[in-house]
C-alpha cells in the first residue's frame, strides 16, 4: 500500500522533472547554438517571458494552440533581431544588451498584461494534454515518466541529437563553432560574420520563445507577471555547467528540473522545510554548480566579444 503510494510519488516526481525540463531544454539548445556562434545572449529570461506572454494572450484570444505557439516564436524572434542588432551591428556590450532586453520584456509584458486583464476576470485555461506513445507508455514507471508527455517534450529531447549533429557534422555548424572561437578566421576567408551571428541569435531566441510558450501552455493555468521566474538565467548557467556541449547541457537542465520538481513535491514527500525555501534551492544550487564548473569548463574563446575588423 505505502509502496504503491511511494511509487506514485516517484512517477509524479520524475514525470514532472521531464515536463519542467522541456522549456529549459528547448531554450538551452537554441542558446547553445547562439553562444557557440560567439553571441553571449543574457536576454534569455526576458525572451522566455515574452514567449510565455504572447502564447497566453494569443491563446486567450484565439483559443488555438498552434497560433499561440507561432505568435510566441515570432515575438521572440523580434527580440532576437533586436539583440543581434545591438550586439553585432552596434557592438554594444553583450551583457548590457541582454539586460536591456530583459528589462524591456519585463516592462512591456507587465503593461500589456495589466491592460489585457483590466476590469475583467483573468482568463484561465487547461494546459495542453499529453500524447502517450502507444505500448511504450504502458511500461511501469518508465512509461508514464517518459512516454506520457506532451508533443513538444518529445520534440525538445529529439532536438538534442539534432543540434549535436548540426554543430559537429555540418558545414554551417563548423562555421558557427569557428565563429565563437575566432571570428577573424571566417572574415578573412570571406565568410559573412554578421549574417551568421544574426541567424544564430534569432534561432536561439525563437527556441527560447517556444520554451516560454510551453511554460505557459504546458503547465500553467494562468499568466502571472515574471512567470519565467529566473528560468532563462538557469538556461545560461546550464550552458556553463554543461561546458557548451549538447549532452552535458541536457544533463545540467535535467538536474535543475529535478530540483524544482522536488520543491513542488515537498509536501507529498513530507519535507519539513518551508516550501519557499525549497523553491529557492535551484538558485542556490546553480551558484554551487558554477563554483564546481570552475576550471573544468572552457567557454568559446570569442564569446561575448563583438567582432570588428581591425
Amino acid at each position, binding site marked *: 500500500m505505502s509502496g504503491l503510494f511511494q511509487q506514485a510519488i516517484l512517477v509524479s516526481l520524475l514525470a514532472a522533472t521531464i515536463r519542467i525540463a522541456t522549456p529549459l531544454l528547448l531554450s538551452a539548445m537554441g542558446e547553445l547554438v547562439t553562444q557557440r556562434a560567439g553571441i553571449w545572449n543574457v536576454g534569455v529570461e526576458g525572451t522566455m517571458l515574452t514567449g510565455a506572454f504572447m502564447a497566453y494572450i494569443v491563446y486567450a484570444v484565439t483559443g488555438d494552440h498552434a497560433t499561440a505557439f507561432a505568435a510566441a516564436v515570432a515575438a521572440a524572434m523580434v527580440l532576437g533581431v533586436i539583440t543581434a542588432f545591438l550586439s553585432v551591428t552596434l557592438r554594444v556590450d553583450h551583457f548590457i544588451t541582454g539586460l536591456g532586453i530583459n528589462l524591456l520584456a519585463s516592462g512591456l509584458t507587465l503593461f500589456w498584461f495589466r491592460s489585457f486583464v483590466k476590469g475583467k476576470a483573468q482568463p484561465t485555461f487547461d494546459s495542453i494534454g499529453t500524447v502517450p506513445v502507444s505500448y511504450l507508455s504502458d511500461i511501469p514507471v518508465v512509461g508514464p515518466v517518459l512516454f506520457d508527455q506532451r508533443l513538444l517534450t518529445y520534440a525538445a529531447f529529439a532536438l538534442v541529437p539534432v543540434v549535436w549533429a548540426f554543430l559537429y557534422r555540418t558545414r554551417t555548424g563548423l562555421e558557427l563553432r569557428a565563429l565563437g572561437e575566432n571570428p577573424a*578566421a571566417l572574415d578573412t576567408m570571406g565568410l559573412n560574420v554578421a549574417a551568421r551571428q544574426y541567424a544564430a541569435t534569432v534561432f536561439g531566441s525563437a527556441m527560447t520563445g517556444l520554451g516560454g510558450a510551453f511554460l505557459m501552455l504546458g503547465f500553467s493555468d494562468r499568466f502571472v507577471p515574471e512567470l519565467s521566474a529566473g528560468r532563462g538565467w538557469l538556461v545560461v548557467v546550464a550552458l556553463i555547467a554543461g561546458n557548451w556541449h549538447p549532452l552535458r547541457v541536457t544533463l545540467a537542465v535535467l538536474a535543475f528540473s529535478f530540483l524544482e520538481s522536488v520543491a513542488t513535491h515537498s509536501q507529498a514527500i513530507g519535507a519539513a522545510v518551508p516550501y519557499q525555501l525549497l523553491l529557492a534551492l535551484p538558485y542556490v544550487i546553480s551558484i554551487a554548480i558554477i563554483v564546481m564548473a570552475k576550471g573544468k569548463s572552457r567557454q568559446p574563446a570569442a564569446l561575448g566579444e563583438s567582432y570588428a575588423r581591425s
Partner: protein
Amino acid sequence: MTVALQASGLSKRYGDVVALDGVSLEIHAGEIHCLFGENGAGKSTLSGCLYGYVEPDGGELAIDGKPVKLRSPAEALRFGIGMIHQHFKLVGRLSVIENVLVGAGGRGLFLDTKTARRRLAALCSDYGIELSPDAIVEELPVGLQQWVEIIKVLFLGVRILILDEPTAVLTPQESDRLMGALERMRGAGMAIVLISHKLREVMRSDRVTVLRAGKLVASLRTAETSPEELSVLMVGRKVSPSYNQGRELPGEIVLDLNDVYVNGERGHRVLDGLSIQVRSHEIVGLAGVAGNGQRELFETIMRVRPLEAGRISIDGKDVTASSTRDVIDLGVGHIPDDRYLQGLIGSFTIADNIVLGRHHDCAFRKGPFLDRKAISSFATDRMSEYRVAARDSAARVDRLSGGNAQKVILARELQRSTSLLLANQPTRGLDLGVIDYVYRQLLAKKAEGFGILLASEELDDLMTLCDRIAVIHRGKIVGVVEPAATTPQHLGLMMAGQAIPGGEARAH
C-alpha cells in the same frame, strides 16, 4: 612575364592618417615580389587592399589585365588571391582538418571530410610537411601552425599568394624552409607577394617595392640593388645603428630564478624548470619562438602568475611568496609586450597613466583626494624628460601613436625602477626612430648599474645589445651564449629545441 595583378593609384586614409598615397605596382606570375618598409609604412594596408579586406578610397585593381573591384576577401579568393595574415587566423580549439574546411566551400549540408583529408595529405606531402589532420591546432608548435595557415590557403587553389610578415614567429631555419617553399610555388607559376622588413628575406625575392609613409619610394629588381641601398630607401636617410656597448663588469645578481615551474590557464606547463640569472650592469637577452613561455616568464617574475615550484629572488630577497606590489616596491620596472592591455589604461590621461600604481602615494594625494596639481606637474616633467609628444598631460593615452604610448610606459617604469628592468618586446610595432630611442634608454640604464632582461623577436638586435643571450624553448632555458661566440643560425637551432653541445656554458 605576365602581369597577374596590377594596382594603380591606391589610396587609403584612416581619419587624418594617410596610410596609402597613390601606390601603383605590378605583380608578375612566377615571381616573388617583396613589399619592404618600416612599421606603419603602409605595407599591411596595401596587402589588405589587394585581398579585398581593406576598401581603398581611390585607385584601381586589375587581374590578368581585366579591371576588378574587390569588395570582400570572398571575391579575392574567387579570383585566386589568397592571404596569410600577420596574426594567425586559425581556430585554436579545432583540428587541422576542421580549420582547413572553414570557408573551403563544398556542396551539401554535411562536411565531406574524406575528400578533404585526401587532398590535405597530398598537399602536405608536396611540401614535405608532417601534419596530422586530427591534431588540435593550439597544441601544435607555432612553426607548424604557420603551415596550417599556408596549407589552408593552398587548399583553395590560389595562384596569387600574399604573405604578411610570415617569418616573424619562425626560427631562422624555419624561415629558410618557408622561403624554399615559396620558391617552389614560384616555380609552379604562382605570384607571391611577401611582406617583410628583414633584409635577408628581401634579398631572396625577384622584385622589391619599398614603401615609406604610405608612398611608393622605389620598385626595383632585387638583383640590381643592395641591402644598403634598400635600407637607405626604407628610412629616407642613412642609418647605422651603432650602440655604444659599454663593457662594464657585471656586478651582483639582481634577478635569480631557480628551477621555476608554472602552469598556464588550462593546467599545462608553461615554465618547466626554468632557471636564469641577471646581474647588475648587464643586459641578458631572451631569444625564443613566440609562445615558448616568454610572456609567462615575465608575468611570473612580476608575481602576477602563481608558481607551482621553484624560487625567485630579486636583489637577494626571496620574492617567491610576494605580491606584485612587493616586487614593484623592490624597484623593478616592467615593459610588457602588450602595452595597451598590460601597461596602460587607454581611456585615462597621460598624467593618470604616469602615476598609475602610485596614485595612493602621499606625494599625489591630499587626504583621500587626488592632488591633481602635483600629478600633472610631475607628469609634465616626465613627458619632457622622455620626449612624449602630446598636447599636454591631460591627453588620452589611446589617442597617442604607438611610439608615444610606449614612451609613457618608459616614463613611468624607468623613472621609478632602481635595480631591475624587465622588457618584453619593447620595440614591437615601433618605427626605427623610436626603436633607437628605446634601446638607448636601456643602455643608459645598464650603465647606471641596472640588470636588464630583454626579450625580442629581432635576433640581430639581441646580438648587438646583449651581454648574454638565453634561449628559451618550451618553458626551459636551453642554453646561454655570448653574442660574440654565436651566430643567428646557431641561435635558431637552439630556439628549435636542439641541444647544442656546450650550450649550457655560461659567460664568466
